[in-house]
């Protein structure tokens, strides 16, 4: 490899490099110049730096139109992966903005740089076309997420949640690695395209089936699909709220993107079929079962939650179920629809967690009753909450509704006029009607119940307000004019 190749590598990985440099800058600035300043000042300066770095990386990725495959699948660059990276960077920016008013830690520089480190992992994950690269970048992102979960050292739930997340995550990594090693053994390659080529026509032999199931299990943990979801409620509840937002938004986007890629490219030829009257063994029926379980269990369990963060965790499980529909339909249209859904979901869920963070700060908890009378105590904040939760519930004209329509119509259309996958869509729509109930419970607290008599107005920090209003505007914009986002995902 000569120096020209290195230069090219640097050019192709420029967005990641920019974020890495930013991360080091943030860390060193916080340890040197900002030492001794107040936490709020450190948070704001660090956030400014990080946002600038992420924004320039995003602009770079957005404006270049490159198509390249570096070192046989180590780094795949094309407009599509670039756009997904832009989305991840945008979600990271919003996550950082809503964490600026946080009081859960003194280690501001470390916190911000871990978020950036996680982002770098996710960006590499999106570009990966090789099993090893997938594993390494997934672990990079996950390790950052474990630490971010544990970051509130004053709260023992935070450590408990992180330990649980870490143990489950470690297990899932082992499953994933085992699956990958079987794949390597069967095909003699770690490149996804090569694997598909060498497995083509061999059918579904038992060892491949094991590899498939292991891979699905590994990713099932990452995206918190039933029955691999047990870590999620505790992690969401215990983690500092911005960390939970990061787990729920940015990491979902990358995980779903790569999961769809592995299954569609790496396991090409072993799809099977999940249609109602003609199920054929393969990966689609496996994913179909997981999707159905996630939708049902996630939504039904969310109903009985009294903590809003746990409620959002179960709703995340349910949403993972909807997103899996886009994976198992296995058409280009369905994958585009899924990416639209995941990205808009990310935008929405960061907003929802942002509101929860403010309420938690002001009232000391995230129980349903802490939201009572929010519409009087903080009108703008509760209007944003209304937008986010209704979008999650799938009320038009918000992004969540259009996302569902894209996703469900693409799923049904995947089987042509036979409507073979309609059973899954019917289940999804029925469950989405259930979900409306628990979102409405939260909104009922905010808009119908009265706050305690002496409850003061809630002061919302300026940066947070700005971020939340922007997020709510995006949710409405993507709902009313979805083509603005959808055209980049085709």
């Amino acid at each position, binding site marked *: 490899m000569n120096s020209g190749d290195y230069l090219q590598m640097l050019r192709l990985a420029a967005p990641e490099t920019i974020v890495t440099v930013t991360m080091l800058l943030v860390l060193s600035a916080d340890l040197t110049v900002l030492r001794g300043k107040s936490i709020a000042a450190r948070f704001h300066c660090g956030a400014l730096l990080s946002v600038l770095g992420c924004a320039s990386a995003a602009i770079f990725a957005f404006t270049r139109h490159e198509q390249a495959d570096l070192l046989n699948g180590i780094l795949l660059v094309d407009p599509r992966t670039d756009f997904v990276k832009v989305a991840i960077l945008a979600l990271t920016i919003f996550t950082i903005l809503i964490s600026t008013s946080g009081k859960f830690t003194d280690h501001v520089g470390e916190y911000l740089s871990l978020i950036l480190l996680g982002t770098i992992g996710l960006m590499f994950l999106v570009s990966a076309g090789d099993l090893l690269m997938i594993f390494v970048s997934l672990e990079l992102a996950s390790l950052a997420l474990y630490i971010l979960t544990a970051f509130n050292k004053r709260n023992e739930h935070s450590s408990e949640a992180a330990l649980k997340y870490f143990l489950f995550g470690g297990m899932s990594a082992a499953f994933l690695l085992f699956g990958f090693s079987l794949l390597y053994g069967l095909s003699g390659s770690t490149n996804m395209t090569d694997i598909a080529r060498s497995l083509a026509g061999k059918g579904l032999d038992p060892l491949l089936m094991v590899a498939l199931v292991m891979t699905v299990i590994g990713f099932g943990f990452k995206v918190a699909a039933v029955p691999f979801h047990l870590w999620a409620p505790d992690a969401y509840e215990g983690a500092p709220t911005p960390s939970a937002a990061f787990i729920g938004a940015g990491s979902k986007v990358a995980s779903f993107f790569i999961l769809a890629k592995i299954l569609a490219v790496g396991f090409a030829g072993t799809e099977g079929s999940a249609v109602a009257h003609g199920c054929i063994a393969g990966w689609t029926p496996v994913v179909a079962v997981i999707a159905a379980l996630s939708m049902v269990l996630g939504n039904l369990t969310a109903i009985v939650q009294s903590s809003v963060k746990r409620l959002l965790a179960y709703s995340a499980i349910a949403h993972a179920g909807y997103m899996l529909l886009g994976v198992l339909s296995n058409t280009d249209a369905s994958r585009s629809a899924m990416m639209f859904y995941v990205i808009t979901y990310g935008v929405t869920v960061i907003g929802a967690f942002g509101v929860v963070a403010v309420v938690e700060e002001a009232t000391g908890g995230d129980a349903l009753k802490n939201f009572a009378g929010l519409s009087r105590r903080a009108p703008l904040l509760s209007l944003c909450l209304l937008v986010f939760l209704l979008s999650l519930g799938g009320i*038009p004209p918000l992004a969540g509704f259009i996302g569902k329509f894209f996703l469900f119509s693409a799923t*049904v259309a995947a089987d042509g*006029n036979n409507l073979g996958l309609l059973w899954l869509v019917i289940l999804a729509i029925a469950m989405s*009607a259930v979900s*409306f*109930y628990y979102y409405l419970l939260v909104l009922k607290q905010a808009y119908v119940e009265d706050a305690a008599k002496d409850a003061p107005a809630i002061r919302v920090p300026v940066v947070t307000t700005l971020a939340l209003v922007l997020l709510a505007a995006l949710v409405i914009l993507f709902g009313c004019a*979805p083509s603005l986002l*959808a055209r980049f995902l085709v």
Partner: protein
Amino acid sequence: MLAWTIYISFLGVLALMLLPRDNARAARIVALLTAIVGCAIAFVGSIQLAQQGNVGEAATIVKTAWIPALGATYYLAADGISLVLVVLTGLAAIAGILFSWNVEKRTKEFFAFYLALIGGVYGVFLSFDVLLLFVFYELTIIPKYFLIARWGSTRKEYGAMKLALYSFVGSHLVLIGLIAAWVVARGQLGHPSLDLVVLSEQVRFPASFQHWVFPLVFIGFGILAGMWPFHTWAPTGHVAAPTAGSMLLAGVVMKLGAYGCLRVAMVMFPEGAREWQWAMAALAVIGIIYGAGVALVQRDFKFVIGYSSVSHMGFVLLGLATLNTIGLDGAVLQMFSHGIIAGLLFAVVGRMVYDRTHTRDFNDLEKMNLGKLLPFAGVTFTIAGVASMGLPGFSGFVAEFQVLIGAWQVFPKMTILAGVGIVVGVAYTLRALQKAFYSDTPTAAQDGHDHHDDHPLDPISGPERVGAVMLIAASLVIGLFPTLLMDWIEPCFKSALFARLLNGGGQ
């Protein structure tokens, strides 16, 4: 021009949100102005459109690309049926605000939700793109919920949640049908489309497909139209709602359901409609009789009106089930007529009586001698009552009469049963009138323990009188000159849109 009915309502919402928090007077005036302007646009726009050409054909108002990937367009249009309902919405919106002039608690938010609901309703009646229609349809659910849960009475949170969940389940049934229809239509057309005209004129959904998708979509919309046995949200919702809420629920929101049944379910899946014609009619007739029967034995004044709505909406559904021109004419006219009359009835019960006496129990009302204390309310309810019974001269007569003629041609036996429903209707209305206003039982003063005379009831206020006169006038005008609206409705059923539904499966 008609599109501005939608925009002006949402602009009103924005204006209200910007008002200072405690200025209730300003909020009322802004809301009333918005509603009046909306209604004026509805009237002028409708008349203009009617003069321009054939109201039977959908006249395009706006049509631009919206989501090309789905074939969805921002397509607002109106034919005669839309015009009738848009005018109804305009009237009901003004009346509702006049009858909630006394809302003091968080006035600004109340009217913001109110106008958002109105905007959504206008949107449904003007949408000719199925997805757009669905968007507006679901948009109305949220304001309804908050209006009831926050400003309602009797078991308001239960009633509100029940209404919201029923609506949401109904609209999700519709959503399943829409997505399936979208896929099948795309297969036939070769490109995606959600245009109502294209879907109903150019696409032929296979009979086996219509067989299951029609009941799904019809029931989905029918839930909101108060179709038995999915009507149970209606009485509890109406009772729990604040006066303006129940006026709108009965006045226009139930029409959304019936309109969806006609515009989407029946027009897109005509063969399914023919196949399920008898089931539709049977459910409608059961609704008519059941609603009337239950209304007859209620102790709560508002429940009587709530169940009467179920019964009257049964006539709309029966009219739809006839699948002949005269029955459908009657159904659409009945939507208008019931919107006006039910609004008036709820106004009397909720605003004139309940807000003053704080009870709706007949046993209490009997003792109060309201006919003397509130003569205006007594007279208004008498007029509204006879209009609701279907006395000639009021709009209800023309509408129900046409429905019955249409139904007689198809299912005579069931028509007789529906006629029985009308008789029971007379009974429960007279019973309510007698118990609430003109009771013979000794008044409380004579009983010896009276607390009402100490606090004389407020006289009927100006806004209430204006609202009541307006609604009575509307019902009378249409009763005496039904051609005003029939000229808009009739041509619609001769248009290509309804050709397949009415011509029994030909081309």
